Structure formats: C-alpha cells, structure tokens
C-alpha cells in the first residue's frame, strides 16, 4: 500500500481547551505530537498548517445566530443567561477567551485535511484536534463548540458535487452531532459504535436511529454494553463496518478516532486497550484502499486519560495513516520530559500488556449482547443502504 500522508497541525490548534481542571485538556495534543516526533514518526512529514474556518464554512451546518453567540462569548461580551440556551457557559462548555477563533481553527484543520485528500495532494490526512462530534446546529455540547466533521463533510460535498462520504466514529460516546446534521442525506453514511446511551452521554445512538426520509438507512448505530472489551468491540466493528462501507461505496472516509473507550478513561465505562486503537485505523486504512483509492481523513475525538492513553493511541493512529511501523517502546526522552509532570505512572511500552487487563465479570454475557446488537444492525439497517 502506498500513498503520501499528511498531518495537519500547528500550535494555534492547541488553544482549543476549557482551562483549569476541565477534563478536555489540549495538553494531550502536545503529548501526542512530541511522542510521534520522539518515536521518529514525523521525520518525513512536516506539519501542514491550516487557516481557520470562515463564517461561510461554519454556517454550512451551524446557525449564524449561534456563531454570533460564540463570537460574543469569546469576547466576553455576552451575558451568561443569554449563552446558556446555546449550551455555552455550562460546566461542560465554559466560556474561554477567543473561543470562536480557537474553535474555528479546529474546523479549519479538518477541512484542510479533507481538501488535501480530495485534491490528491495526500492519500490520507490526519488532524487530531478534530473530532468534536457532539456540537449541534445551534448548541455547544459535550466539550464541542463547532462540528469540524460536519463542516468538512458539508463543504467537501459542495466542492465536489455528488461525492459520497462515509463517517466512521469509534469514540465511546455516540456521534450525535454529525448524525443529526446528515440524518436525511443519503450521500453521507454515518456509522457510530459507542457505549449504549442508556449508560453514557449523550443518551442517543440506538439501533432504531437509522436516518429519515431520503436518508433512511444512512445512519448506522451500534450501542455497546458497559465494560465491553477489545475482543467484543473489534468483533462488532468487523461485523458492521466493512459490510456497511461496501454497501455504500464511499468516495472518502472520514474517521473519528476518539480513544475514550480505553479501560483507563475516566469518563466512560468501556474496557478497551491499545489493541483496539491499532485495529480500527488499520482496518479503516484497508477499507479506504479497497473502496475509495485510499481517500481517508482521520481526526481525534474524546480521550481523557491524557497521559497513559491518548498519546499512545493517536501515535498508533498516525503510524497507520502514514504507513509506518509502530515502535515497541516509548522513547526515553519523552518519558524523562513528561514523567515528572504526570500525576500517574507512565507506561514504558506502546502496546498494553493483556495481562494487565484481565477479563471482567460477565464478559461472555456482554459480548453475546453486543453480537446480537450487531446482527440486528446487519439485518435491519444495512439492507436499506444502496
């Protein structure tokens, strides 16, 4: 497999964050990029800068009034009571200085990654700042202000009329924002595999949510049981994703690679390890070559164990995007630099040792239930895709 890979990033993208003790911490980007660099994975790959998304870009999927509210909030010019209906100024999405500019940059990064791939300048492109999949048309939600994938998909569809885009979301949380933006659009297939909404934010993502109108069948949801492990997550992915993508026949695959399904993640209740975060990119990569000449854009997403999980998971993502071998060990330099800063002991190896993650109770009950859910999706939803 060949094809040039691009990584879209600049330090300005690290200004998207909510400060203080907030769980969404842009330090995770710094940790990841420095890990990639120390591993030698960036030697032939200079960072590609990007421009912030314009108002015109943002309003492909967001309401202009909402954009204005974010702008005012970022200038400190709005009353909290006026912002709350837009999901801003809450515990999850507090106001931070210049929040419009920082949020628009994230969107611009993912849009640039999409354009590089659609122009053929890169076969695959990654922007780990992206993946803010909860942002709604007129509302910030779940740490997400603007929906980068939503804007990129809508804009690329305008720039290349008739293209079909598949969105594959393996964040532990349902990719609700992106799903609702294209719920009636048969040219955009959204697939989300996530912890069941009965147990985890945002609460949606049941199998019966399968798109509406012309788009019926083009939203695919696979809710997983709490405490699902690698084996069952991977089996579910394999049952649903290749089949769905082959039915659909995308021209571009955009993957949201949130890594908060890891056992150590403090916000969710799934039990994956780094094995999942090697498997998913490898398979999406294969499918992109099989189905759409390799055109693949990868974003980040959730991931709240920023020391032990995120850097390793997204370094593995980049290794896959750029066709490089993932080294076995974390570099000493990185460990020395960040070890003293980390509140938790840092792993020495890039891959989790399965012995450290023994199977939990009810593991077969959980995987049986997930397998039944995947079968239900296969029978009831995938036949609607044409």
């Amino acid at each position, binding site marked *: 497999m060949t094809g040039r890979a691009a990584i879209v990033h600049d330090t300005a993208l690290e200004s998207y964050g909510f400060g203080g003790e907030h*769980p969404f911490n842009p330090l995770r980007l710094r940790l990841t990029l420095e890990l990639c660099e120390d591993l030698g994975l960036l030697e032939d790959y200079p960072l590609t800068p990007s421009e912030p998304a314009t108002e015109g870009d943002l309003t492909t999927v967001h309401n202009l009034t909402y954009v204005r509210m974010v702008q005012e909030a970022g200038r400190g010019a709005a009353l909290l009571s006026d912002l709350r209906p837009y999901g801003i100024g*809450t*515990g*999850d999405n507090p106001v931070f200085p210049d929040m419009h500019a920082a949020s628009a940059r994230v969107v611009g990064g993912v849009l640039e990654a999409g354009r590089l791939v659609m122009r053929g300048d890169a076969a695959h492109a990654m922007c780990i700042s992206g993946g803010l999949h*909860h942002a709604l048309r007129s509302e910030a*939600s*779940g*740490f997400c202000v603007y929906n980068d994938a939503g804007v990129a998909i809508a804009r690329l569809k305008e720039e290349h009329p008739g293209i079909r885009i598949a969105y594959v979301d393996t964040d532990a*949380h349902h990719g*609700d924002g992106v799903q609702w933006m294209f719920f009636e659009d048969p040219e955009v297939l959204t697939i989300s595999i996530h912890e069941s*909404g*009965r*147990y*985890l*934010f*945002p*609460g*949606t993502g049941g199998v019966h949510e399968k798109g509406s109108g012309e788009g019926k069948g083009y939203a695919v949801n696979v809710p997983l049981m*709490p405490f699902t492990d690698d084996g069952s997550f991977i089996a579910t992915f394999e049952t649903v994703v290749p089949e769905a993508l082959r039915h659909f026949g995308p021209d571009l695959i955009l993957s949201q690679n949130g890594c908060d399904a890891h056992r150590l993640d*403090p*916000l969710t*209740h799934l039990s994956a390890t780094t094995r999942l975060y090697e498997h998913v990119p490898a398979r999406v990569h294969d499918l992109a070559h099989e189905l759409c000449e390799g055109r693949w854009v990868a974003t980040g997403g959730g991931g709240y164990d920023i020391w032990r999980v995120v850097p390793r998971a997204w370094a593995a993502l980049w290794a896959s995007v750029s066709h490089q071998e993932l080294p076995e060990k974390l570099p000493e330099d990185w460990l020395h630099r960040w070890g003293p800063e980390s509140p938790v002991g840092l792993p020495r190896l890039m891959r989790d040792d399965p012995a450290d993650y023994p199977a939990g109770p009810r593991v077969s009950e959980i995987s049986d239930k997930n397998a039944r859910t995947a079968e239900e999706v296969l029978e009831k939803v995938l036949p609607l895709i044409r």
Partner: protein
Amino acid sequence: MLQVKDSMAREVATLSPGDTAGEALALCRDRRIRHLPVLDGGSLVGIVSDRDLRSATPAFGDPDRAAALAEVRVGDVMAREVVTTGPDDPIDAAANTMRERRINCLPVLEGDRLVGIVTSSDVMESLVYLLGAHEPGSRMEVVVPDRPGTLAGVAGLIGELGINIVSVVTGPRQEEDPPTRVAIFRVDTINPSHAASVLEKADYTVLWPPRP
C-alpha cells in the same frame, strides 16, 4: 407528556354498530390498529378489538368465513361497558386503569364527545420519553434513604455544581432494610463522575456511574 392529551392519538378510526365484522377487520388491517370505538349518533356505545372480531367469526380458511364476515355486526360483538379516560387525566392514572382492568386501550372523552384514544404503547412511549434522551445528557442513579429532604439534598448538591437536572424519577429498591429508594437523574453533562464523587463525599451511595 404528563397528561393523557399529550400522548393520545387524536384521529380516531370509529365504527357504527351496524358495520360488518369484515369492514371492521379491514379497518384494523389498513390502519394497523387493534381497538375501535363504536359510535351511535355521535355518542360512544361500545368498543371492539380485532380479537373480539376474530373470535366471533370462523377461522381463516373456513368455507363459512366469508358469509360470517358479511353477516356479523359490530353491535353484536362489541363490549358495551367501556372504560374511558379524560384528556386532562394524568398519564399515570390512565396507565393504572389499564393495568387494573387488564385492558390495552382507553377512549378519551371530553364530556360525551370522543376526542382521542390512548393505548398501552402510547403510555410506554411517554414513559420512555420521561426517562429518556430527548436532549443530550447522562444517567445517574443515587440511593436516597426514604425520609423527607434526601431528594432535595441530592438535587441541591448537583445544582451547586451548575449541572442542570433534565428529569428525575424515584422508586423503591427491592429487599432493602431499612427501606431505601433509588433516584434516577438525567443530567445535562458529559461528565457526571465529578457530581458522583461530590455526592459520595456527602455520604450518598451512587449506583451509576460506577466509581473506580
């Protein structure tokens, strides 16, 4: 969603006592419904279900079936004693009536006028809606000792964190002594674990989200 009028179907297919069983069954099939109120001169005189109609006519394949479908009249088959509800009744009262009388459907009367019909599936749907995810949020389950003020205490701590409570229901926990109740909250945050740890520090038992 808390009153019958919020959940009921307003367009009601009805029959007259003189309609045939065949016509009634065709209506059930076309509209995919199982219960039909029977009106005579605008007032409710009975109710008939597809099951009543089937048991009053020969089975499918029986040579006498066609004749019976054309002969048997709704007025001969219908139940004449109809349990009804009103549009302003609480949905839980309607649910309780259905449970007690072992029926699956209640015509809704405003005075003498039929204004809607509510079925057990409508009640289920409103239950799902009340507990459910019509806006983004997380589930929390907290044990609340069965005495005044505990629910207020929990809600107060959640409120102090700036977290909005979208909905709450409470119910008894089975086989607990002394009796306790569990409260299920939907809260508008992606990160309920912070609230959970605050509640645990205040000596509440949090059943979900699980604590590390």
